[in-house]
């Protein structure tokens, strides 16, 4: 069984189902990317993994432990870190305070150490540690958001469109950082609009169409797949 196995997820926000028998697996130290056309249920699938959606069927198992019935805030101590797409930093608080808030649930004395690791990963955050996060650029804010999630020392980091609204150069940088994070042994689950670039760094890709798994393969294989290229990657 995979480190995260979300199997047969079926459900929606109360009305009709959005996800139909959707399955997502992520291994430790690997990057899994969920791609698909607009309205395919990519973000919904991730929210389902994080417990923000009532599942009618299916289960979510993290590290051998069934967490299907836990509330989102109860999944954080279980090792899940979630970076929402919007409103993902405390705008009125400084960069450092944002990171401190990420470490809120931790009681150990290694918090400063983790903070230093994050400043090494994202040097710009160290430079701007005393600046309110609301004053930063879009790309820098995303770094704060990822940093805040990493402060909980998650075993699984989930990113909802981390590159939405940032320039291509910043996007490449962010992807590089995400690869670096994965190398430290963290499992990464990411939803992306920029499907081609995301699949290039992905170990596994999940192509969703209308809430169903359409293709599931390694990132490389999906990029090479004629049908995937024609339908979802623009040629």
């Amino acid at each position, binding site marked *: 069984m995979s480190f995260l196995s979300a199997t047969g997820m079926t459900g929606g926000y109360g009305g009709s189902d959005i996800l139909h028998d959707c399955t997502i697996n992520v291994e430790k130290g690997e990057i899994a990317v969920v791609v698909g056309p607009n309205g395919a249920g990519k973000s919904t699938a991730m929210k389902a993994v994080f417990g923000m959606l009532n599942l009618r069927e299916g289960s979510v198992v993290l590290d051998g432990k069934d967490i299907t019935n836990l509330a*989102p*805030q109860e999944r*954080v*101590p279980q090792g899940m870190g*979630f970076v*929402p797409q919007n*409103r*993902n*930093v*405390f*705008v*009125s*608080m400084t960069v450092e*305070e944002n990171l*401190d*808030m*990420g470490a*809120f*649930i931790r009681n150990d004395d290694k918090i400063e150490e983790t903070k230093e690791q994050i400043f090494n990963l994202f040097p710009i955050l160290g430079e701007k540690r005393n600046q309110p996060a609301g004053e930063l650029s879009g790309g820098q804010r995303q770094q704060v958001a990822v940093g*805040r999630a990493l402060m*909980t020392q998650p075993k699984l980091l989930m990113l909802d469109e981390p590159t939405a609204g940032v320039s291509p150069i910043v996007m490449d940088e962010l992807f590089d950082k995400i690869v670096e994070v994965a190398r430290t042994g963290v499992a990464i689950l990411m939803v992306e609009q920029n499907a081609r670039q995301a699949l290039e760094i992905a170990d596994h890709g999940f192509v969703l169409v209308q809430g169903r798994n359409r293709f599931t393969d390694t990132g490389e294989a999906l990029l090479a797949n004629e049908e995937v290229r024609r339908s979802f990657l623009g040629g």
Partner: protein
Amino acid sequence: MEILNALALFANFVVVPATAYGAQLALGALGVTLIFGILRFANFAHGELMSFGAMITILITWFLQNMGVSIAPFPTALLALPIGVLATISLALVTDRMVFRFYRKQRSNPIVFAIVSVGVMFLIAGIIRIVIGPADQSFADGERFIIGAVQSRKALGLDEGIAIKQSQLITVVVTAIVVAWLFWFLQKTRSGKAMRAYSDDEDLALLSGINPERVVMICWVIAAALAAIAGTLYGLDKTYKPFIFLQILLPIFAATILGGIGQPVGAILGAFIVAFSEVTVTYAFKKFLAYLGPTDWAPEGLVQLLSTDYKFAVSFIILVAVLLIRPTGIIRGKVI
């Protein structure tokens, strides 16, 4: 010399009382702004919370006076204040548990919360009328003046003196200490940061593992403590009138909105602006102008812009003007 006399007069009748009044309003407005930042509604019961704190403090003060306990030259009320604070915190937590929590669970609209708080306001007002009655109560003892009028006239060598009441000095000192502590708490402590994070973004705070119920509880404790202190200081400075605490909501809300809702610094700023406007506008400038004009001349009328009976009109005008011109307030806050 005439100019100095005019300034001394102005200081005595405007600057000193307005500073004390501003400090009392600031403590009230801080409570309102904290509740708004965390629980996201305008708490109309805050005035009665102040009144309740003052009432308990008065009852304890009377008890201590009867027992012969005194900390002269300081007013006995200072000794009774901690109990007033504790009682007010208990009342706030009980109302939250019995009333507000229900609506929080329902995720009710802020308007519903505001109207519920009006109900709580009437309830607390009723309790106060039953316990201490509707009449004015005087409970100040100890030294009345720090600097008397005659004393300061001699010291300054002027015709006009600047008298400072002990209650005014106590008000300013206590407010300074409380405000300094509050800002230290919000900026430096774990719980304070959690409160700011929760105020900033509720959902993200939840994702970070911050317990909303705990944040709400701390918020009530602080707001109630501030309310009890503000009510007692106000009663000590003037007299305790149960009815005044309905009217005082207006300047407090004006100060909160003027400063920017949910912004503690703004609440203090707004409180002093409201207090100084109110006192200046209702002050009769006749004697002041007489000093500045030619010898043996005095203006015919009182040169008072507004009768003191209408002093709450000042807050009302400020409130309306802010809502029309800059609804976010001086320091960009939330918009109701």
